[in-house]
């Protein structure tokens, strides 16, 4: 792999974002993390001004996605990511408070790679993120479509 993976974190709650980042760092992952607090900014970054996704062509990305965003639902973002030819190969980790089975099913159907419920219990939370770190180390982020 010639290019380090960039972690894109779309999370409106600053606290959550901070906790996630800390735990990722604690698990020994040092990749760059780019945070977005709303869907619009994230979409702009991912798809570019022309909405084609061309800006991310050739970049290796891993996307951490919260479902409850102030301006749009994470489901929409997930759907568009998985429909875009430049982005669809990027792994998406849905990380949210919703533990509704319907919602989880829906995310998997749309192509999400991992679904993690944010537990209130911090031990579990930290564990989940650390496992995610483990996941980062084993996952093969495919070379982006050229």
């Amino acid at each position, binding site marked *: 792999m010639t290019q380090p993976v960039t972690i894109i974190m779309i999370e409106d709650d600053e*606290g959550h974002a901070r906790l996630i980042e800390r735990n990722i760092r604690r698990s020994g992952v040092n990749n760059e993390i780019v945070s977005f607090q709303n869907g619009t900014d994230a979409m702009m970054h991912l798809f570019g001004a022309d909405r084609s996704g061309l800006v991310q062509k050739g970049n290796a990305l891993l996307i951490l996605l919260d479902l409850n965003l102030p301006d749009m639902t994470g489901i929409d973002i997930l759907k568009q990511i998985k429909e875009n030819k430049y982005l669809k190969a990027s792994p998406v980790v849905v990380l949210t408070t919703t533990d509704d089975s319907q919602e989880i099913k829906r995310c998997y159907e749309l192509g999400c790679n991992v679904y993690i419920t944010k537990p*209130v*219990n*911090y*031990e579990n939370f930290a564990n989940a993120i650390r496992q995610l770190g483990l996941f980062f180390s084993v996952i093969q982020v495919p070379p982006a479509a050229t």
Partner: protein
Amino acid sequence: MTAEGQRRRAFWQILLFAAGLLVLTVISAGSVYLVNKAREDSKWVVHTIEVENQINALLLEIRRAESGVRGYLLTQGENFRVDHEKAVAAIIPALDKLTRLSGDNPGQRENVEKLSAAIEIRLGQFAQEMVFIQQGQPDKAAALVREAAAQDTTTRIATVANAMAQEEERLFRLRTANSDHSQTLAASMTGIGSGLVVVLAMLSIWLVRRSAGARDEAEARLRDANVNLEAVVDERTADLREANDEIQRFAYIVSHDLRSPLVNIMGFTSELEELGGDIFRRMSSLAHVSAEGAPLAPAGPGEIALEGADKQLSEDFSEALGFIKTSIAKMDRLISAILNLTREGRREFQPVKIDTRELIEAIVSTLAHQAAEAQAEIHLEPLPDLVSDRLALEQIFSNLIDNAIKYLKPGMPGEIRIRGRTKLGYAIFEISDNGRGIDPKDHQRIFDLFRRAGTQDKPGQGIGLAHVRALVRRLGGTMSVSSELNAGSTFTITLPIAWNVSNRNTDR
């Protein structure tokens, strides 16, 4: 139409009816009376005519007798003598009849007496004349005839008879007038009465029609009200359903959104805890450094050697964090409970045929470990099968049986009994135990969300019974408890034997 108006109308109807009846009775009585009177009057008219006839018949017989005597005297013809004798024989009965007929009238009676006296004299003369003729003394007979004619006997007879006839004539006129009067009276009475009856009948008809109109109107209004009522009920049901959905969504969103900040609170509290650990560890190492002049090897994690005020500080810090963490954990459990309840409330029920015994046996086997620990025996009596939602039934029974095992009296072998029967399309299940029981004042409270009763020595959120009751209600059933403190509890569930989606599919 007011009740007052109705009562007044009814009163008037009764009054009219009574008046009609009274008028009819009066008319009938009056008519009977007047008809009788008219008949009486007619009888008297007829009587007068009869008396007149009788007078004329009497006079006629007397004339016949007289003419018979004269004829006999002139011709000595036997036929005249027979004629005369017949006439004489008829005079007395005719006179008797007249006497009888005119007996009612004192004036006439007097006249009849005068008449009969005159007739008697005349009859005596007749007899004398006949005797003279038969003795061959026609001269004497003729003289007697002349004498009789000359004397006023015949005249008197005629006069009296005339007077009588005139009297009868007067009576005839009077009685005819009377009779006419009675008949006119009877006719007018009947006429007026009939008119009155007709008027009353018309009044009644008018009243009846009016009340019938009022009734029709009331019926129409009732129909409208019924139709409206259905519409209103539909509307309200829709409103309620919407409100219910709204509450479900609200509960879901609120509990969901409450969770987000809770993750932060918990996360940063844990971070703080760790930070606190670091700070106090550092304090301890600094204290040791300053006290002994040389740095010690850093203490192992979790092993903080502090003294005096610093130790107190560290303990207070940990205690505060501990309270925060337990509170957060509790809040998380409550939020999860609400989430689960709303999720359960939104689940679609699927009616399937359920072997109740099998279902409960499965539950009992999963609870066997707890039951053994609590020294509880579970007895299953024959249970009716039903068509219902399997998962809901499982949750209902496992909650109730779990409660029964959980709240037994400590140190006393438990006995839990599950009975079932059917009644009027409903299956009634009773889950009874010999446990600690529930104070009657708490019987309502135990079904409320997050509320518990009795000694709080078992873990729980106060959700089970609220959940069970919500499920039972959604399945179209009811639920109740009967229990006394220290005397065991019996929970009774009544469920429709054949539940289907249409029963309660609106209740989502």
